[in-house]
């Protein structure tokens, strides 16, 4: 096993059958037209739906990692994968390949490859399609190390998948299934909020010795543009990041929703004079309990927001743990602003997602509790 691990540094990228790169497929989608062009005169109905529910706020240019380049989220992911593949210059182009259309097969093969010690990065085209592979992830990948008493493991497996609402995805191109996987000890679940975060977190997932699921917010693929270092770098897993310090309310989110609550924090400061602490959870499982609890002890109020449905969503886990740890520090009940308990709708999407107004409303009610 050790010998195999040493020699087999080759890396395989499995991907379900698609047009040359999933990126070209997203080319013609409404995304660039919606965000980069000004709405042309196609009628009020069409115009209304082009406005996104968030504004991407880039982080300042990182200086400690060397030269940077302007990249959007999918370019950052590609850069991370290029860096990873470059670690083994002897292997050839055929380690990046398309598979037939079988999610269970893709993840199953990935687990098999990883068990021998080789690094496998499997792509599931949309997170909504990950469910045929759910059995493989939960029953095989997550439990391999545990059931073999550490003799075998599939730690070198990373599964990446586009995630979250995209403005027009409807039922099967918009889901956020992180909560299903949060219930499974043995795997790690990571969601980045920006290109810089995505590259660092993805490289950490690939190097992490545990099977990881990396969900990429697909609405940010082109909408999020930032300066990202060209060289590889790591962002530690299971560490949440406080991106705005505050003293009155703690706001927690991940992925696209971080940008929504950032805006809510700015609104609260301006309109209510309330100082909000904004935390990006980054790793869903295992999550950074300490950072969140320390913040709630300071502020006394917590609001968690995510697109996934309310019941059983990850906000319920955060809520439950925080009330256990910080009960006496809480000034108001913990607020969860999430999607409705319905399948992700087609035409009702703008009403379904927890946009900044719903979060702001919840925040106001918490302040006045």
């Amino acid at each position: 096993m050790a010998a195999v691990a040493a020699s087999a540094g080759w890396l395989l990228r499995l991907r379900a059958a698609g047009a040359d790169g999933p990126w070209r497929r997203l080319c013609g989608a409404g995304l660039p037209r919606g965000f980069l062009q000004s709405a042309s005169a196609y009628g009020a109905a069409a115009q209304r739906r082009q406005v996104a529910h968030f504004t991407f706020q880039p982080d300042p240019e990182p200086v400690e990692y060397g030269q940077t380049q302007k990249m959007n989220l999918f370019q950052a992911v590609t850069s991370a994968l290029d860096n990873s593949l470059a670690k083994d210059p002897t292997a050839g182009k055929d380690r990046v390949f398309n598979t037939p259309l079988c999610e269970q097969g893709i993840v199953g093969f990935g687990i098999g490859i990883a068990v021998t010690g080789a690094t496998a990065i499997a792509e599931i085209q949309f997170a909504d399609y990950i469910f045929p592979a759910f059995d493989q992830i939960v029953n095989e990948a997550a439990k391999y190390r545990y059931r073999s008493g550490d003799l075998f493991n599939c730690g070198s497996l990373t599964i990446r998948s586009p995630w979250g609402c995209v403005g027009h995805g409807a039922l099967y191109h918009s889901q956020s299934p992180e909560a299903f996987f949060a219930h499974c000890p043995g795997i790690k679940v990571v969601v980045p909020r920006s290109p810089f975060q995505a590259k660092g977190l993805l490289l950490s997932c690939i190097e992490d010795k545990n099977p990881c699921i990396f969900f990429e917010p697909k609405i940010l693929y082109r909408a999020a543009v930032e300066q990202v270092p060209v060289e590889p770098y790591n962002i530690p897993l299971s560490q949440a990041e406080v991106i705005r310090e505050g003293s009155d309310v703690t706001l927690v989110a991940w992925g696209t929703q971080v940008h929504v609550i950032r805006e809510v924090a700015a609104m609260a400061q301006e309109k209510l004079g309330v100082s909000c602490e904004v935390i990006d959870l980054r790793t869903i499982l295992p999550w950074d309990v300490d950072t969140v609890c320390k913040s709630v002890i300071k502020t006394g109020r917590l609001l968690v927001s995510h697109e996934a449905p309310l019941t059983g969503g990850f906000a319920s886990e955060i809520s439950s743990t925080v009330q256990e740890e910080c009960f006496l520090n809480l000034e108001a009940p913990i607020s969860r602003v999430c999607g409705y308990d319905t399948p992700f709708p087609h035409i009702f999407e703008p009403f379904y997602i927890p946009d900044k107004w719903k979060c702001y409303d919840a925040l106001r009610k918490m302040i006045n509790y």
Partner: protein
Amino acid sequence: MKKMLTAAVSRVLSGVTQKPASRVLVASCKYSNNATFEIKKCDLYRLEEGPPVTTVLTREDGLKYYKMMQTIRRMELKADQLYKQKFIRGFCHLCDGQEACCVGLEAGINPTDHVITSYRAHGLCYTRGLTVRSILSELTGRRGGCAKGKGGSMHMYAKNFYGGNGIVGAQGPLGAGIALACKYKGNNEVCLTLYGDGAANQGQISEAYNMAALWNLPCIFICENNRYGMGTSVERAAASTDYYKRGNFIPGLRVDGMDILCVREATKFAADYCRSGKGPMLMELLTYRYHGHSMSDPGISYRTREEIQSVRSKSDPIMLLKDKMVNNKLASVEELKEIDAEVRKEIDDAAQFAMTDPEPPLEELGHHIYSSNPPFDIRGANQWIKFQSIS
């Protein structure tokens, strides 16, 4: 009949230009009522005999098929247009080029038989009885749509048509289940379970084959092989591209999916086979789609424009039927042009409706989650905004 003919003739003579009716009535003397055609022999797997190699097409049927195929073609092109104008959003998978499959399948079965398919479903929605209006307004997400605007392109349903499924391959076991119900109820109905060449590689399809064959279910598995699973050609995705043999222990047929008569005969043959209790059958329809996988796919990065052009000029299903009918005096070119004009008008009307119909009311957001009495509240974005679920 004689009276009508006389009246028509007199109308023509009096110079009133009621073109369509009179022309058809007067000119119908020139047309033959039916014609016999030779059709391509199907490749067989585990079968001694296949569908017949000759078939009779009546004038009435021919006109009906032509109109249906032309409607589907125009409807898909209109959907393309509406998508580019952003009236339709989301994911839209068009089936122009595959009209002979939908119409041929419908011609080979009864309205009481069952059909289930994947997301490239607009053609089948129409042949199963939905109006163009309800299809287009479902695409634009309005309340006149067949699923009240809540489903969109991939989730349209009709009587004995179970959708419209987004997840690739998920409809395989569902179709086998419907067939089990047919067998159990003993109503002599069959279930057509359609899937594509990409889905043929899904595990669940093999599971469906096994169960259908084990219990002799009246299920016809139909693989619509349009040569590309999204952007991957069949050679790059499948170890064996003979999809009609992939059922292993299930007998199979490979059918020319661009010739509607071939599809019709093969479907009738397969339906008879299943109805007689011999178990499932697998049909592979060799067809082609002109558009890309969906509206986000230009469709030319994995295949050449020349290929698309050559299929369009040599094996376009509507063109093939038209040539057959005109060359065998079943219809005239002008008559078919009139049908084209009618179809165009119908589609334009439907598109107008689809663009102007109001969207479903916001309360619908919560409806039909569970079947429950009394209605209950949906928990939502925060504890202060609630929707009722009525079902």
